[in-house]
């Protein structure tokens, strides 16, 4: 402790400079951690943090036994798996093509356009979905009617939404991920390709035997690191696309939308906090595990 104060005196300015950040995380991250206690109460706003009746594991028990938690976790994990694999593969394909194709103007323009969705808000994604899929005026139904087919009410069927949600997630991250993979490809020394060319390898062979194997560590690491976050849902994406549509919960409800509904619509604070704590806790276990694996594979890339 004395040592700490000595250091504090010596580096007063440095401590002062980092103080706002420390206060920020104390107020918005560490103190709210105490609030996970709500998960073990039957929360009422009158009672507050310590006045609400303690109910032990009852909230968790309910979440498990009603099957809600199983469905939420399944959806969250499966959606994230689809996002990770479809997204990374498409980004990789784009990066490989863009790095080897001719036509500077074309590559520049298309890359800029593919990056555009990253910059727009999820509310606009909601507007796209409305424009495309609403029953009365949606563009998809316009097309169906024009082809002489029956219009389709998307909001009554769960089946199409998996594809719509995965499409818009991949759509939004395509440009960003492509840039990351392009950077990794640019890091590959030209000498490999030159040598292979002299040996008569054509472009497909060079991609197959040089580019892809050299990208494999980056690919695996990006996938592994994303797997650590597999329990974290993208609230913005799901809420803007599906909203509070009870018909579709089975196929589209993730932990994050459930927690939000508990807070803002059902006012079931205890249950919502319990689901959130479940997510945080197992998310934590997952990241630590994944990090442990990454550390074994390649120490430099470990998060901590």
């Amino acid at each position, binding site marked *: 402790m004395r040592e700490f104060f000595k250091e504090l005196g010596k580096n007063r300015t440095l401590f002062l400079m980092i103080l706002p950040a420390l206060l*920020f995380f104390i107020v918005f991250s560490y103190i709210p951690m105490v609030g996970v206690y709500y998960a073990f109460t039957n929360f009422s706003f009158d009672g507050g943090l310590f006045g609400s009746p303690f109910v032990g594991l009852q909230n968790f028990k309910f979440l498990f036994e009603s099957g809600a938690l199983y469905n939420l976790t399944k959806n969250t994990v499966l959606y994230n798996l689809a996002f990770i694999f479809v997204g990374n593969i498409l980004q990789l394909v784009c990066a490989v093509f863009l790095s080897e194709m001719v036509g500077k103007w074309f590559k520049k323009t298309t890359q800029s356009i593919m990056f555009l969705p990253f910059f727009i*808000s999820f509310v606009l994604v909601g507007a796209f979905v409305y424009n495309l899929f609403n029953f009365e005026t949606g563009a998809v139904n316009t097309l169906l009617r024009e082809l002489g087919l029956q219009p389709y009410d998307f909001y009554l069927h769960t089946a199409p939404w998996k594809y719509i949600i995965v499409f818009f997630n991949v759509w939004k991250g395509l440009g960003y991920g492509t840039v990351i993979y392009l950077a990794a490809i640019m890091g590959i020394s030209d000498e490999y390709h030159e040598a292979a060319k002299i040996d008569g390898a054509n472009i497909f062979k060079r991609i197959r035997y040089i580019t892809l194997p050299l990208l494999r560590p980056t690919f695996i690491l990006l996938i592994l690191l994303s797997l650590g976050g597999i329990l974290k849902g993208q609230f913005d994406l799901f809420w803007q696309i599906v909203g509070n549509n009870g018909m579709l919960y089975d196929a589209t409800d993730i932990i994050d939308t459930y927690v939000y509904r508990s*807070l803002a619509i059902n006012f079931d604070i205890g249950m919502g906090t319990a689901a959130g704590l479940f997510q945080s806790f197992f998310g934590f276990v997952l990241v630590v595990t994944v990090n442990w694996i990454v550390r074994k594979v390649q120490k430099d890339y470990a998060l901590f």
Partner: protein
Amino acid sequence: MRAERSTIVFNIMGYIVISVLTLLCLLPFWLIISGSLSAEDDIIRDGFRLVPQHFSIEAYKAVFSNPMQILKAYEVTIRLTLTGTVLGLFFTSMAGYVLSRKDFKYRDKLAFFIYFTTLFSGGLIPWYIMIVNYLNWKDSYLALLVPSLLSAWNIILMKNFMKSIPDSIVESAKIDGAGEFTIYRRLILPLSTPGLATIGLFLGLAYWNDWFSANVFITTESKYPLQFLLYKILASAAVLKTNIAGNLGADFQAPAETLKMAVAIVVTGPIIFLYPFVQRYFVKGLTIGAVKG
């Protein structure tokens, strides 16, 4: 140069794949623009389509017939974005600088203190109760501004940018008698422009696109930022429309469908407009950060 057959095949494949994906990226934007420029009657009768049947700017006229609401939302968003970006950059870069100082003894402990918040959190509800019940920021701009100022990721990214600045610069400035804050302001900040630009863009974009904070914290309509206003119009105009159909009969035809699309364009406009200019800085900063890991 004689192109090999396989090279030609590869390029054709590439042009097809990249063109299709690019068109898919553009398609939703195109549909919104087309919808906003259509006649309301056409949309009600036939629905949205790629090309307007009758070109019309009625929806935009309607948006600007009573522009106060949108202008007010613009003001809120611009103020929030500017204040949030400047303050956020200031606190992020100070923290990043301290954590990048190799001679600072508690560097690793403090870095972990910040990093840990990305590993475990109390979740949405305790965070919300903290802000509403303990800070009393319900319906306050502070709830839109402060909770988004800092993120552990931005601080770590900043620290990584600053780590590449040679130690000798700090050391020689110290010998010349400069204080820590002066070193940060006069030497470190100017040398960190790529990092500041990248993180500034992240922050600016997050504030501009934020609808969630307003959704949970803001109740007064005049305090709505842009994206939340769009969200409300997209959602509540639908309710409005059914009410009209029930109460007023068919002769009343205020643009509702096309209006939604026009508002979406008006609200997103500045981003699309600024995008070509900021994109290159963004990509540059991103690749520097990514290569360094």
